[in-house]
């Protein structure tokens, strides 16, 4: 093989690494789950709540349901808040305010998740506990609601920055033209700006979802980690990342337990990737 050819081969091989890495991770999780799944019934695993790993019972329902519940509730918070805030900053706030806020969001996204978790533990958990009392609900505060609030705050800066840049990409002359027809600014936003940016907004929501699903530490510190099927947002729960983090050390030694955990990691990964994939399809279809 000539030197040029060898060089080319080396380069191509080097470049393929991300692809290989991804495959390795994905298949490692998949194969280990597969071994585990072979012995069990998939439906039973997904929908049973019988979780007694030492006896060989692996009902995953409480866990993925918790993940689902926390993420959905958090979406109910971060989607409207994120949109409202980004519209305000981009279209109503004056320049000085805007320039002050932009670095602010960058800085916020740099803060580690344990810090958010600590804040949740310090401020949100007591708040939720008191809030529940208003409704006559007894809760320690370690709950889905606390986790959703913390997650929303973690995800918001990213989503807001994204949406603001989307809105700023719409040409000013379009906004001018709509306004000159005698619309209120809000009508311009409602009828032209948002529809124009629809794709990007949905994409940013998906991306934020992906982040929220995978977030481990902050959620663990406030969600309660109890194996129960949560009914109200004031109930504690046990999302998949928290399960993995908590049970990991001990369980790697027991083969079926290990398989179960890797399966949950696989599920987690799958969810995140689905959202990521949706993001790319929606966003890149432009």
């Amino acid at each position: 093989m000539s030197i040029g050819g060898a060089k080319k081969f080396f380069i191509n091989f080097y470049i393929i690494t991300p692809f290989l890495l991804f495959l390795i991770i994905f298949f490692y999780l998949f194969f280990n789950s597969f071994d585990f799944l072979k012995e069990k019934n998939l439906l039973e695993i997904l929908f049973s709540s019988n979780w007694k790993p030492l006896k060989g019972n692996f009902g995953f329902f409480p866990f993925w349901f918790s993940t689902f519940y926390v993420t959905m509730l958090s979406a109910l918070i971060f989607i409207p808040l994120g949109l409202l805030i980004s519209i305000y900053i981009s279209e109503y706030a004056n320049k000085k305010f805007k320039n002050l806020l932009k670095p602010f969001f960058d800085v916020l996204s740099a803060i580690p998740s344990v810090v958010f978790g600590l804040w949740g533990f310090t401020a949100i958990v007591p708040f939720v506990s008191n809030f529940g009392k208003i409704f006559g609900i007894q809760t320690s505060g370690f709950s889905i609601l606390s986790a959703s609030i913390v997650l929303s705050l973690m995800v918001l800066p990213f989503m807001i920055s994204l949406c603001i840049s989307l809105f700023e990409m719409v040409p000013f002359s379009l906004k001018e033209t709509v306004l000159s027809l005698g619309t209120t600014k809000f009508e311009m936003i409602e009828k032209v700006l948002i529809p124009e940016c629809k794709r990007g907004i949905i994409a940013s929501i998906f991306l934020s979802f992906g982040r929220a699903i995978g977030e481990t530490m902050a959620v663990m510190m406030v969600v309660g980690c109890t194996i129960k099927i949560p009914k109200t947002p004031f109930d504690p729960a046990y999302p998949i990342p928290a399960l993995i983090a908590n049970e990991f050390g001990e369980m790697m030694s027991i083969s079926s337990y290990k398989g179960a955990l890797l399966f949950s990691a696989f599920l987690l990964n799958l969810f995140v990737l689905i959202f990521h994939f949706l993001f790319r399809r929606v966003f890149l279809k432009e």
Partner: protein
Amino acid sequence: MENEHIRIKNFSVWYGNEKALNNINLTIPNNAITVILGPSGCGKSTLLKSLNRLLDEVDDVRVEGEILVDGKNIYDKDVNVPALRKKMGLLLQKPQVLPFSIYKNVIFGPKINGIKDKKILKEICFKYLNMAHLWDEVSLKLNEPAHKLSIGQQQRLCLARGLAVEPEILLCDEPTSALDPISSKKVEETLLELKKNYTIILVTHILRQARRLADYIAFFYLGELVEFAQSKDFFENPRDERTKAYIKGDIS
């Protein structure tokens, strides 16, 4: 002057620290075409945007003075800005169609103003596309996206759309400079017809266009109103030196 529709009194505009318009005093007569003439950068667009308060949307802008439309100062605190803008139709140099179908473009304004009846909307669409001399070319494809039209057609669509909100005043910022000669001619013809019922303010830097269309001419130079006269007087007896120089082509 009688028939005054708009009176601009001691009006100045600053972008930051730069003065774009200096103490303008100008009356725009009713139902006529007033051309704002002058070299680029002399504040013509700024003046137009001051009239429908689009200037409000720009950062760091300061205004002084008054602009009276039908006797009321549009910069008063209690002015309803969307209603003011509805009174003034805007036509920009580069046609800006809305990202909808042709039909939706035209009825966008009326719909915002509360007209829901489909029959009425269709009539409005027909009436104003006709007025803009565009109906024949698009009547069979009203549901197609507006951006597929040629530039000349887009500009006429913008005109129809602007007319559909039933303004009294038309503000046109170099509406034909991006168009080919045939489309330009069509737009100019339309404007000449419209002046019977609308007050038209046309910004341009093309002398010939001013000659063709203007009833009155306001000549601006470097942010100041230099001369205002009826079209004939303006070209035959220019009074200011700068006006003379501009007409001769020495400055542009």
